[in-house]
């Protein structure tokens, strides 16, 4: 009880301090200079219409490479942590089977959602999408199949191969930039007309690689989590 009152007091104090701090920060006015630079010069420099994508993929490309590495590390670590869990779990729970309506419908929806995820990561430089949301949508299509088909599984071999190939594609594109244009992850393709699908240099290529990588990684992660509950 004392612990609870103490925690409540702490929460209230932190809330008051945070409010007092945030009251000093003006809302709705321009704050950064670098953001203005990106907005004014981003289209001329890189040809991508979506400025956030240009920042994530090209201006701060190393950061995104590290981010993808962190995601890979988390997926691998999850597989490692859960590795011995499956064999020990002897007691089998009785599970209810998914209904016929759900099975039929998800079979119909699965290719549509995959196609939509592909649309998201291919149009990453034109719409508010990109590789990470596209990968998540693809993984959600696989999750749909996991939920509604008990026997259906994504083979670990294929998810691993897709993931490795996509990661290698990312690094190889960076190395080609190093060879052709002089620095790692530099843009080496023509910029094109802003707003067209084939524009913005290497942004669509990198986002396609990221989309495949995130999709296969999250699918493998879901597959790992699913195998432990059987």
């Amino acid at each position, binding site marked *: 009880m004392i612990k609870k009152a103490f925690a409540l007091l702490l929460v209230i104090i932190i809330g008051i301090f945070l409010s007092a701090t945030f009251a000093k920060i003006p809302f709705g006015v321009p704050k950064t200079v670098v953001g203005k630079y990106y907005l004014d010069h981003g289209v001329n420099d890189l040809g991508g219409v979506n400025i956030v994508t240009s920042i994530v993929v090209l201006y701060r490309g190393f950061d995104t490479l590290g981010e993808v590495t962190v995601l890979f590390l988390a997926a691998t670590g999850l597989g490692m942590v859960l590795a011995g869990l499956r064999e020990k779990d002897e007691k089998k729970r009785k599970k*209810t089977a998914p209904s016929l309506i759900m099975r039929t419908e998800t079979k119909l929806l699965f290719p549509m959602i995959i196609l939509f995820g592909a649309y*998201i990561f291919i149009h990453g430089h034109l719409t508010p999408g990109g590789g990470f949301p596209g990968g998540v*949508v693809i993984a959600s299509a696989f999750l749909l199949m996991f*939920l509604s088909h008990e026997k259906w599984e994504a083979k670990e071999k294929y998810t691993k191969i897709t993931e490795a190939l996509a990661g290698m594609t990312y690094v190889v594109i960076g190395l080609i930039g190093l060879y052709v244009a002089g620095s790692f992850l530099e843009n080496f393709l023509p910029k094109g007309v802003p707003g067209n699908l084939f524009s913005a240099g290497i942004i669509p290529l990198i986002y396609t690689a990221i989309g495949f990588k995130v999709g296969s990684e999250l699918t493998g992660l879901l597959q790992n989590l699913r195998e432990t509950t059987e």
Partner: protein
Amino acid sequence: MSWYIAIGIITIGVILTLIRALKGPTPADRMVAVDSMTTITTALLVLLGLYFKRYIYLDIALVYAVLAFVATLAVARYMEGGL
């Protein structure tokens, strides 16, 4: 001006489902309320795209619809003991 009335009606709808999600006696009640709320929110996102006159905002509504559907299905399978 006609637009604020439409968005006001839909927002009242979201608040009503939120009341049920907070009150609901069983988890099934809350989940039904949340499921309806996601549908209403999808319509609201499309109307927001109309309000700001940006074509690209429609993608967000579609992604939201997909992810909300998968989430609802996952919770439903969990509730019936299929996971």
